[in-house]
């Protein structure tokens, strides 16, 4: 699973003049850059206390398997005196990554653990060497936010040789749990889509026409948030008709442009479901430009960035489903329990919050 590479597929943008020969060269360069950005907005505001507030206890998947030190192999260890290596995949250029790294760092500081960090700057080869570096520098446990799911064999071999437990966050790697790594912690994007649908049903009264601003094509986040939303609408509010599905590429400008076309051709639209906050904010811009008033068209978004939650406070956005980036406490708690010899789940779903008119104002500080 991948939260952050929303914009991994620049060719998917319709603007691509792909048949020109130079497109190939451009795309190569475009790829390297565009992975850096995800849905970004707002300044990093999460203080340590805020981060802790956003932390929800792990909800083990019902019937999910566990993992123990005995099964994994290795010796017990007191996390307090240990060295933790953290490998971040992309540079901290969007709120999600900023909050994620900060959360890890804050938790390490809080627990008095020595933390080594590295950032792969969206280059997978760099991430591999980063992790090997962390191992060489003496990391006893590893927290990895993987850029890719595949290609981890060399690192896993090196870690296994040193019996170093690994926890991956926000994206799974293709390997055997409790053998190659201990556990995987992330949000459930399908569930986020379902919760967004619930809010949309509530905001519209379960009737009318809604549009979906899709994320970047070919991205699992897009696929899963779409599936969750559609399934829940079909199940609970068959009178809510999805009349429009166009990609906004997880970007504010694209979200604005697509929404402008939408409200020109379908003035009677009742709701817009944006698969991230940025596109939702773009939709708000389009509505303002068209002279609409807050609430004329209901907007539901996912992520929980500061700007979007402010939008809820201002009345332009009716609901925001959080995608929690604060993996620090959960990751450390899992590693702590594991290294002390307790059983931990192989797959942990981080609990995401939600914002609506009732709590947005008071929880604004929790938004990242």
């Amino acid at each position: 699973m991948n939260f952050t590479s929303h914009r991994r597929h620049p060719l998917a943008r319709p603007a691509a003049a792909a048949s020109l020969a130079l497109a190939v060269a451009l795309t190569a360069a475009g790829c390297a850059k565009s992975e850096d950005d995800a849905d970004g907005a707002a300044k990093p505001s999460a203080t340590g206390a805020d981060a802790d507030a956003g932390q929800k206890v792990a909800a083990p998947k019902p019937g999910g398997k566990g993992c123990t030190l005995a099964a994994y192999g290795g010796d017990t260890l007191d996390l307090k005196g240990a060295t933790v290596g953290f490998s971040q995949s992309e540079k901290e250029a969007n709120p999600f990554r900023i909050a994620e790294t900060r959360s890890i760092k804050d938790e390490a500081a809080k627990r008095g653990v020595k933390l080594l960090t590295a950032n792969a700057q969206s280059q997978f080869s760099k991430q591999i060497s980063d992790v090997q570096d962390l191992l060489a520098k003496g990391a006893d446990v590893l927290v990895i936010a993987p850029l890719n799911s595949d290609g981890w064999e060399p690192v896993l071999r090196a870690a296994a040789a040193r019996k170093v437990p690994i926890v991956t966050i926000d994206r799974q790697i293709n390997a055997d749990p409790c053998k190659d790594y201990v556990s995987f912690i992330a949000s459930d994007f399908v569930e986020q889509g379902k919760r967004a649908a619930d809010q949309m049903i509530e905001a519209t009264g379960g009737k009318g026409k809604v549009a979906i601003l899709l994320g970047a094509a070919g991205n699992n986040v897009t696929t899963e948030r779409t599936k969750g939303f559609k399934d829940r609408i079909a199940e609970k509010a068959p009178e809510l008709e999805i009349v429009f599905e166009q990609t906004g590429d997880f970007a504010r400008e694209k979200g604005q442009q697509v929404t402008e076309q939408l409200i020109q051709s379908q003035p009677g639209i009742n709701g817009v479901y944006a698969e991230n906050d940025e596109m939702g904010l773009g939709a708000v811009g389009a509505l303002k430009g068209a002279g609409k008033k807050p609430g004329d068209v209901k907007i539901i978004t996912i992520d929980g960035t500061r700007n979007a939650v402010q939008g809820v406070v201002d009345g332009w956005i009716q609901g925001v489903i959080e995608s929690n980036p604060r993996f620090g406490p959960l990751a450390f708690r899992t590693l702590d329990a594991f290294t002390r010899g307790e059983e931990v789940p192989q797959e942990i779903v981080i609990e995401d919050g939600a914002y609506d008119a009732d709590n947005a104002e008071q929880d604004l500080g929790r938004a990242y």
Partner: protein
Amino acid sequence: MTGIAVRPAAPDRARIGHWLQRYGVYAGVGLLLVVNTALTPHFLSVENFRTQAVQVAPVLIVALGMALAIGTEGVDLSVGAVMALSASVTALYLGYGLPGALLVVALFAAAVGLANGALVALVGVQPIVATLALMVGGRGLAQVLLPQLEDIRNPAMASLGSGDLLGVPYLILIAAGLVLLVAFAVRRTTFGRQLLAIGDNRTAAQLAGLPVKRVLMVVYVCSALLAAVAGVLATARLQASDPTSLGNLMELSAITAVVVGGTPLSGGQVRIAGTVAGAVLIQLLTATLIKHDLPPSWTQMAQAAVIVLAVYAARGRGRR
């Protein structure tokens, strides 16, 4: 091959290609207008045309500079990066007021343009390579200056992005003004004539004593400045500075507009009216497919088809 008597030839494919290259883009725009009028609800409305014009304005402004670069048998891949850079710089220097910020933006853009021009004209690097360097480096710098999206709350910028004069948005007025300015420069100035000569036959232009290096420098500076204007306008419209995604793939959209508009990649010609029509064609095509909620992949395929046609037309011209 044998046994067939010579018959009067069918109309030349070359001639069809030539016609397509010259007028195809206008025919395409006309066709889309007719189709949309017939099939798209609420298409024939002032608001709709305003929306399309506002959306196309930044692409069009960038395409003007691109047309100049292509006219010299070059290309400027750094335009998207310059847009991002101008977005960053705008956000950073708005504290000094809009005019101050614009001044700094212009300085940054001119520096990028000069660097491009120097690499192309003085060092002799292929334009595609020279500007590729700044395409990557420029966006990098933009992100260093402003690591993440920042909202802009400045009344002057807000009015620039969404204000209007007698009902015509500033964006459209500015784009129209720049179209006229560039068209004038191409048609009526020594610079324009020299640019075309250099694009058509650089050796001959050099031997005729034309200031080849200076003209190339000016072309890339113009391209960068136009991209910067587009970047500021897009930022004003978005009410946010987004250096990571603003102008992404803009270079391709601009090249597409220019080529579809009938300007050959081989240089020596600059079709400003065609470039305007090319940008409008792509905009209408995208709008049509979005309004009818067709899968986004269709938009790409439709654009690919348009480009193939444009390239086919350009090839027909080469066969004369």
